[in-house]
């Protein structure tokens, strides 16, 4: 028979009524609260009808080595009135009694509201404010990326995942603060009549938020895993390990210092220091690992795709001769060139909004004969949400126009008919010669194409057949 169990503390710090009711239900089922923190630990007992009451000791701290004299004083007062301390976490003190007529811990509603507010200012407000600022900061950065570079950002699961998680975070912070202030206003009014107002039950909101964040993370992991982008998946795993590892280490250090009798100030300083060091060291290790597998230093190496590949060294860098399947090859346009040194690469990423595939075919860089054969490079952006197509088109056009002033070229509309397209733009020099770089739009599909030669009508038709999806 299970004698212990734990559950997540999915309640707002100030929602004492909801937590008291929950603890009373648990006691009736034979579970007594043992410890409280991010998790609530229970021990098995005989089912009992108990009354729980939560109060807040504003001067206490999670960094205290043990109960402060003030907390001990409160415990003595409470014991005199028939209440026993079940558990405490920082300012929160959870008491219970089996006496139905025991005088409540709180007998002055105004004092209770003010005490909760005094404690909230030191804890929940600070926490909510930090999350809110952090959330708004990242929402601003990622949101701006999505506005200025939709063709890439909206196809990136990391960007969308981050946006979704921070949106949820902002909503929960605002909802929690809003609900608290609303409750406080009403509770103050009730207190002037000498009445206690139960706190707003935040459990449904908190539970839904937890579920939403979990869903975001699962969807994000599934998206990057199925996209074949191993580096992104490893980055995701490393991020999770960094977060959980830092949290675990900081809690271990804090508890060890508490057991060792370190002062509150010392414990807080060391805990904050450990958090900072862990964040820096783990992030450094993670960045190092990502660079190692992902690679400016080892170009061409992509995690999970290096097996059985021929590698070669070029300008001190290790290169891999990828042979990815791509929908359009040089040979489709120019016929068999009797050259077997081509490398073909295909990188994909996508979300429910936009998918993006970057593909290229080029000769091995260490092959002297490679200078004689043409290359091909194209990016296919498929927009799944038609309202975003124009924004992605504008983004890709901007990319095509990039550095026009520096290199003295223009980007002009050209006849889309040979391409079977809705619209085509081309980079053209002032003297009318072409860069052979195009942006082609077929419905909700946009293709940025770069060739080493100027395609004829038949080749344009072949490109349309291979890439338009029509």
């Amino acid at each position, binding site marked *: 028979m299970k004698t212990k169990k734990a559950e997540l503390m999915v309640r707002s710090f100030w929602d004492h009524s909801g937590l008291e009711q929950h603890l009373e239900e648990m006691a009736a089922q034979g579970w007594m609260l043992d410890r409280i923190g991010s998790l609530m630990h229970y021990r098995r007992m005989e089912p009992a009808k108990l009354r729980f009451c939560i109060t807040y000791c504003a*001067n206490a701290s999670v960094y205290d080595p043990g109960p402060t*004299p003030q907390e001990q004083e*409160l415990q*003595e007062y*409470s014991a005199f009135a028939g209440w026993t301390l079940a558990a405490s976490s920082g300012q929160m003190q959870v008491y219970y009694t089996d006496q139905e007529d025991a005088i409540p811990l709180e007998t*002055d509603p*105004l*004092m209770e509201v*003010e*005490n909760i507010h005094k404690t909230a200012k030191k804890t929940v407000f600070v926490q909510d404010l930090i999350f809110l600022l952090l959330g708004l900061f990242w929402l601003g950065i990622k949101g701006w990326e999505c506005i200025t570079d939709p063709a890439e950002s909206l196809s990136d699961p990391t960007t969308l995942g981050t946006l979704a998680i921070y949106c949820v975070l902002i909503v929960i912070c605002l909802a929690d603060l809003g609900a608290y202030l609303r409750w406080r206003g009403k509770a103050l009014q009730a207190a002037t009549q000498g009445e206690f107002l139960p706190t707003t039950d935040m459990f449904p909101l908190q539970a839904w938020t937890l579920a939403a964040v979990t869903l975001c993370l699962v969807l994000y992991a599934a998206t990057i895993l199925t996209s074949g982008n191993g580096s992104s998946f490893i980055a995701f795993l490393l991020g999770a390990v960094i977060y959980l590892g830092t949290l675990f280490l900081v809690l271990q250090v804090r508890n060890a210092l508490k057991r060792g009798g370190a002062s509150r100030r010392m414990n807080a300083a060391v805990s904050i220091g450990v958090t900072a060091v862990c964040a820096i060291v783990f992030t450094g290790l993670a960045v190092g690992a990502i660079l190692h597998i992902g690679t400016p230093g080892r170009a061409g190496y992509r995690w999970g795709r290096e097996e059985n590949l021929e590698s070669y060294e070029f300008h001190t860098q290790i290169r891999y001769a990828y042979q990815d399947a791509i929908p359009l090859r040089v040979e489709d346009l120019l016929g068999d060139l009797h050259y077997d040194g081509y490398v073909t690469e295909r990188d994909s990423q996508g979300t429910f909004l936009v998918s993006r595939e970057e593909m290229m075919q080029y000769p091995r860089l260490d092959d002297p004969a490679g200078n004689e054969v043409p290359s091909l490079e194209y990016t296919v952006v498929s927009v799944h949400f038609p309202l975003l197509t124009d924004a992605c088109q504008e983004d890709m056009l901007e990319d095509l126009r990039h550095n026009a002033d520096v290199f003295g070229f223009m980007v002009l509309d050209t006849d889309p008919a040979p391409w079977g397209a809705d619209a085509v733009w081309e980079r053209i020099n002032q003297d009318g010669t072409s860069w052979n770089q195009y942006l082609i739009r077929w419905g909700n599909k946009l293709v940025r194409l770069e060739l080493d030669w100027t395609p004829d009508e038949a080749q344009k038709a072949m490109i349309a057949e291979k890439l338009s999806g029509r």
Partner: protein
Amino acid sequence: MPRLKYKTLTEQMFYILLCLTEERRGMEILKLVPEITEGRVSVGSATLYNLLESFLEEGLIRETRAEGRWRSYILTKAGEDRLGEEYQRISAQAQDYRIYVKGEKRE
């Protein structure tokens, strides 16, 4: 402490201050208030703890002794004044009642 802003004390505030006209520990106040009021008023332990902290912050009481978890308190001059003001207020209310309900003449 919000009530003080309104120049009134709750019953519990009043009796705690009343108990502290002599040096006393918190535990003694918990026992004494129901005794003085013949069970009409009781003070919750958390309420007592928080009120004592607030009275200390407001300077209405001061700590006289601290032996481990046991602290003793007594009213300050400001506390005596506040208690006196509250007594005057309640007395005035009682006098008004006697005049308008019992028909007594104003003294």
